[in-house]
């Protein structure tokens, strides 16, 4: 039992934590989740924690809705996570 479980736990050699967007949603309907994950993981694969979301299409009131869990973001940035370029742009826009 222990050997089967430990093979599922992937441990990296020299990977680091990044905060980036994971794409989800249907055809012609993107939806990003702001996620803290290891660098080497697939874009939509297993992540460490979801820190928020972004809806890139404007809604009925002409707004692009984004949510950010600031407290956990601070925690991961304190642990030394890096940001991807679009994630940096988003955080820069929100001030």
């Amino acid at each position, binding site marked *: 039992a222990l050997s089967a479980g430990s093979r599922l736990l992937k441990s990296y050699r020299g990977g680091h934590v990044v905060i980036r967007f994971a794409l989800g949603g249907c055809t012609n309907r993107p939806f990003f989740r702001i996620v803290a994950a290891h660098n080497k993981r697939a874009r939509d694969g297993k992540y460490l924690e979801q820190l928020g979301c972004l809806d890139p299409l404007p809604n009925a009131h002409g*707004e692009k809705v984004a949510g950010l869990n600031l*407290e956990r973001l601070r925690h991961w940035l304190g642990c030394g996570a890096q940001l991807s370029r679009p994630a940096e742009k988003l955080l820069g826009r929100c001030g």
Partner: protein
Amino acid sequence: QRRVNRAQCPLPAPRPARPAFTDEAVQNLLHKMTGLNLEKVFKSVKKELKPPTYKLMTEAQLQEATRKAIAEAKEKLRMPPVLDEREPIDDVLAEDKILEGTETAKYVFTDLTYSIPHRERFIVVREPSGVLRKASWEERDRMIQIFFPKEGRRVIPPVLFKDEHLVTVFQQDRHEDLLNMCIAQFEPDSPDYIRVHHRTYDDIENHAKYDLLRSTRHFGGMVWYLVNRKKTDGLLIDMLHRDLLDDTTSLITLYHMLHPECPSAQEAKEGNLQGVELIKVFVKTESQKEGYIQLALQAYQEAMATSTAS
């Protein structure tokens, strides 16, 4: 979560030490006037059909059960807070001309930290012109409903709360359901909430349908509204028709507490009047429908005389 309550002051002249909606004395009076009709409070909400359960109890157990039912009814009858209208938020945090023209739509950022109360959340809007401003109250309500949905609320307020549709609801006599829906949908200090409530109270007062709200938790709010605007005549007549002398006296005491400078209040304080005398003084000085109230008072007194005689 309870919010800070402030006094509702629609009159222009400021007065010193006005009693607030949440004062103990005021709340006690309003609670007495609301009445405790257990049948109406625990009226069955539409649920699945179940055959009624019968329990066999001794006298003591029955009294215990009645006491618990009264306590639960008191909890259900707790009045929703009456607050002033909230002021629109208009705070610009930053202006970045560099970002102008880079985007086409507004970005709304919501802070999703779980342990922050909704009032203190940061909800910020970045306009296409680069201005970073705090979100207005409607935007805040919508975002909070999207990310932290509350039961009974819709993201966009239902069309029912528009004025032309309120009229239809009033014709069907469903004020109580409307007010419950309004409480679930809006914050207590939003202008929509206040507008719907005032419209409902006005309609009830125009058609003298006070009994619809009598044993519900909206009664206190309604009485507060009427007393602040001095439109208490219809309510007085209704109470006298139902032979509720205590309620009439408490209504007049509340009136005096809120408008201490009116002549009937001063006379009452001097003479320390009670009961029927208080009503007569009040009727002479304050009311517009004197004739009706005198008639109702006479009818009540005759009814009392016959009932004590027989």
